[in-house]
């Protein structure tokens, strides 16, 4: 396991925390917490094998959140001095005082054991920031060249984002931790341009809680995929346009993760179900009164929330309220059985939830933002002795096999969704029968998951995910992983996107 970065450990984290928390205590808070965060991020972009941009950023700052007179107060600052820590604490209390007249619900938090000066580091091998920029650009240039020299590839775009996140957290209950996480997100796309149309084919490699080793072959077979992308793209350019209608579909985990994210991940966030996101990201059809009774999908559906999965983008040792990472059920045998919660929601709804403890879903994307309830790694579990993807395809007489993600959209209560993908293979009599184009699938969440006839076995399981899930006001960006197997769905509505455009 890598060590926590010495430069971060050298920062006066405890001194600043003690100053801020003591000032908050002096001002009469019930509870206060302090965060010192340093987020290093690098983005490298190449266009047609030429370096277009490379930027190395660091965001460093501190934040204080308090409960004063039953009301939240939050403030953040950038100067790492005791004076600034004290000022931010005072400002947080001031925010609570200003807000008190329009707060009708006193804030209470669920209990959590105290963790005294603990540390946690995510699972990765090579810190991306330890690799020389030139070495990284050389690798990405090689990957670009492999695609660019292939017949039919007109342009290649490459973008790699890496993040190295260090956090120190302390609260007035006595918990303090230091935590370090690394994540990486590659995006490699080949473009084809013909006389009458253009199209693209992207790598299906998801972002991952891994280091630079991910780009050199640990966790993804780049050699194989890059060799195959030009052929897939050429076939797609020549593919027939799909006939809109109802099909059986086998969805690859490279696509299904995003459907899970939108239709299960966000729908089982309790803050949404209770209306706290109603003005922005929306609410949820999976309301609290349906816990234990809502038939979310077919009996083969088992979905977990997980803050502990190795290489998960939402994996933590401790969340931004000092709660330890956990795993739990959200949907079991097709029935809604759990939610994602933070400490306030856990306390407020403990009778209904059946547990007095938060499952650790508080997260802020930087020191400049307040922690909110954010998504755990929400994953569809495979069948222990389940079939391979080929076996699932063999069960389909006339259908489509969908690979890779692209366009996505879902309504504000998580009912109606529409997704596209990278590749769509026609299935004829249980076998792949060439690609189709202009495909989108559209469904209602419970209908779709109810139509899931079978899930693949562990050999089909893959961790997908996103670096940039948006939520809250002010908007915050979260990274989250969704594991899933291949799965077979019956009678899914398929649209022809060219016809949808009126052509």
């Amino acid at each position: 396991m890598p060590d926590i970065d010495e430069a971060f450990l050298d920062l006066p984290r405890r001194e600043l925390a003690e100053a801020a928390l003591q000032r908050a205590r002096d001002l009469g808070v019930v509870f206060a917490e302090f965060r010192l965060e340093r987020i290093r991020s690098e983005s490298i972009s190449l266009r047609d094998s030429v370096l277009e941009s490379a930027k190395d950023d660091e965001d460093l700052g501190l934040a204080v959140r308090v409960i004063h007179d039953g009301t939240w107060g939050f403030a953040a600052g950038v100067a790492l001095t005791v004076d600034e820590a004290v000022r931010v604490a005072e400002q947080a209390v001031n925010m609570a005082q200003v807000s008190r007249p329009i707060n009708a619900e006193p804030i209470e938090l669920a209990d959590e054991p105290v963790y005294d000066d603990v540390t946690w580091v995510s699972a990765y091998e090579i810190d991306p920031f330890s690799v020389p920029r030139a070495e990284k650009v050389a690798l990405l240039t090689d990957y670009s060249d492999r695609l660019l020299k292939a017949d039919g590839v007109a342009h290649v775009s490459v973008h790699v984002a890496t993040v190295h996140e260090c956090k120190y957290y302390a609260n007035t209950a006595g918990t303090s931790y230091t935590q370090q996480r690394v994540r990486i997100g590659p995006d490699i796309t080949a473009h084809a341009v013909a006389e009458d149309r253009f199209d693209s084919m992207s790598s299906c490699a998801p972002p991952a809680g891994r280091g630079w080793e991910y780009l050199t072959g640990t966790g993804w077979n780049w050699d194989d995929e890059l060799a195959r992308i030009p052929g897939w793209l050429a076939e797609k350019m020549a593919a027939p346009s799909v006939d809109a209608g109802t099909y059986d579909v086998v969805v690859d985990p490279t696509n299904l993760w995003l459907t899970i994210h939108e239709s299960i991940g966000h729908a089982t966030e309790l803050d949404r179900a209770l209306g706290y996101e109603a003005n922005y990201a929306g609410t949820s059809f999976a309301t609290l009164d349906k816990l234990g009774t809502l038939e979310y999908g077919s009996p083969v559906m088992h979905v977990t929330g997980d803050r502990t999965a190795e290489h998960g983008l939402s994996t933590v040792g401790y969340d931004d309220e000092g709660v330890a990472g956990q795993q739990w059920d959200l949907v079991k045998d097709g029935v809604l059985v759990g939610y994602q919660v933070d400490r306030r929601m856990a306390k407020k709804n403990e009778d209904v939830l059946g547990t007095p403890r938060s499952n650790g879903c508080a997260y802020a994307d930087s020191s400049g933002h307040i922690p909110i309830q954010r998504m755990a790694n929400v994953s569809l579990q495979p069948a222990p002795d389940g079939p391979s993807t080929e076996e699932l395809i063999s069960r389909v007489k006339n259908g489509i096999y969908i690979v890779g993600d692209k366009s996505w959209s879902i309504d504000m209560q998580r009912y109606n969704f529409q997704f596209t993908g990278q590749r769509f293979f026609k299935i004829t009599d249980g076998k792949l029968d060439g690609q189709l184009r202009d495909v989108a699938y559209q469904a209602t969440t419970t209908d779709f998951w109810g139509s899931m006839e079978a899930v693949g076995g562990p050999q089909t399981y893959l961790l997908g995910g996103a670096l940039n899930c948006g939520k809250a006001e002010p908007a915050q960006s979260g990274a989250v992983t969704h594991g899933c197997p291949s799965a077979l769905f019956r009678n899914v509505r398929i649209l022809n996107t060219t016809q949808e455009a009126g052509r």
Partner: protein
Amino acid sequence: MTGIQLTPQDTIERGLALAAAEGADGCVVLVAETSSANLRWANNTLTTNGAMRGSSVTVITTVGAGEGTAAGVIGRSSVTEDTLREIVAAAIATARAAGPAEDARPLVEGTTGADWALEPEETSVGVYEKFAPALGESLRRATQQDRRLYGFADHEVVTLYVGSSAGLRLRQALPRGYVSSTGKNADLSHSAWVGTATRDFADVDPLALDAELTRRLGWATRTVSVDAGRHPTILPPAAVADLMTYLFWQLDGRDAFEGQTVFSKSGGGTRLGDTLSPQPVNLRSDPSLSGLEAFAFAVARTSGGSSSVFDNGLTLAATDWIRSGKLESLMTSRHTADLIGVPAATPNIGNYVLSVDAATGTTDDLVAGLGNGLLLTCLWYIRMVDPQTLLLTGLTRDGVYLVENGEVTGAVNNFRFNESPVDLLARFTTAGATVPAFSREWGDYFSRTATPPLLVPDFNMSSVSQAS
């Protein structure tokens, strides 16, 4: 990390001096000082709040690289006198390790702006001095009337300083604020939304916003089910902004030139000069537009298809993107302008105005002229389905209404749509006057927009959404 915090001007002067001393050929330093304050509410009570202060420094250095010039870019927050030296050294080392930049051009020359020496402007929770009590009153009223309110108010001031080794010394402070508010009836079966952008909250009245929400919720006294299909549809300015902002973001000159967008010409090149609409439609940006002021100079922390770090400080002028229905300009850096063969760079500008010549009247006027159709309040979760046609998918949200014989007669279920804003500009039949418009989906990020209401005779509602 306990070194001395520098002023923005000192950061720039010392950064430029350090870069010169370390052998950089050129250097640009950008300092952004931000402050913001926000209030958020749900279920008739305050839920979160915040007062944040931020500071970021971006150092861009250039060095000779073979027959060209290379650039190195490093960005940091919380920069002190001690760390500035490290940042400049890192930027130079990065540039020296890089190859020649394709977009390299001489740094933009300039002089010292008249306001250069001024301190950053700031906002605080004090901006809500009148707003917060009125919001509290509207929350109490909602509780008494068995309605629920959910919303967010945000105010931010960014003061940007740009200095370069070519003599540029620019400063500009930009305030930005907005309110977005959703109302629901007692059983949560219907909702309505209003939103507006502001510069200082002096012109925002929570009670008036609540009155409009109440009016719209009143329309839901009667509910009507309408099937999916192509319907005559009125898009108010906010909904037009939802769609046209996406079009605006697709005006990248290089992507179009390389055959990857709706503005690419079949067989190669761009569609510059093509007629997109038979109507006298104009899409224009101008950093000096009153009420929609944007940065008056180019700001680029990375290079991309239509931007270049070498163009920082380039003066932005009023630009016609679409004029009288014809595609007039695409967004370009100096490099991209040369590449695609247009006479001058037309960089991105942080605002736009969509207008139709001689169009007058309001959304209500369009409603009064419609026999039977739909009125959409706002759109949501808009994503691109097909870049070739700029086909977008998304959903209606928080208020779809039935219009019969010139009046709103009830609330309608929500829909998923599949539509292209480029096609809409070619198909709309009636437009109203252009007014400042706050996009529901993009307004928190891009709020400086003005659009007209439009009547589209055949808006494509692809399916019904159960969401309410």
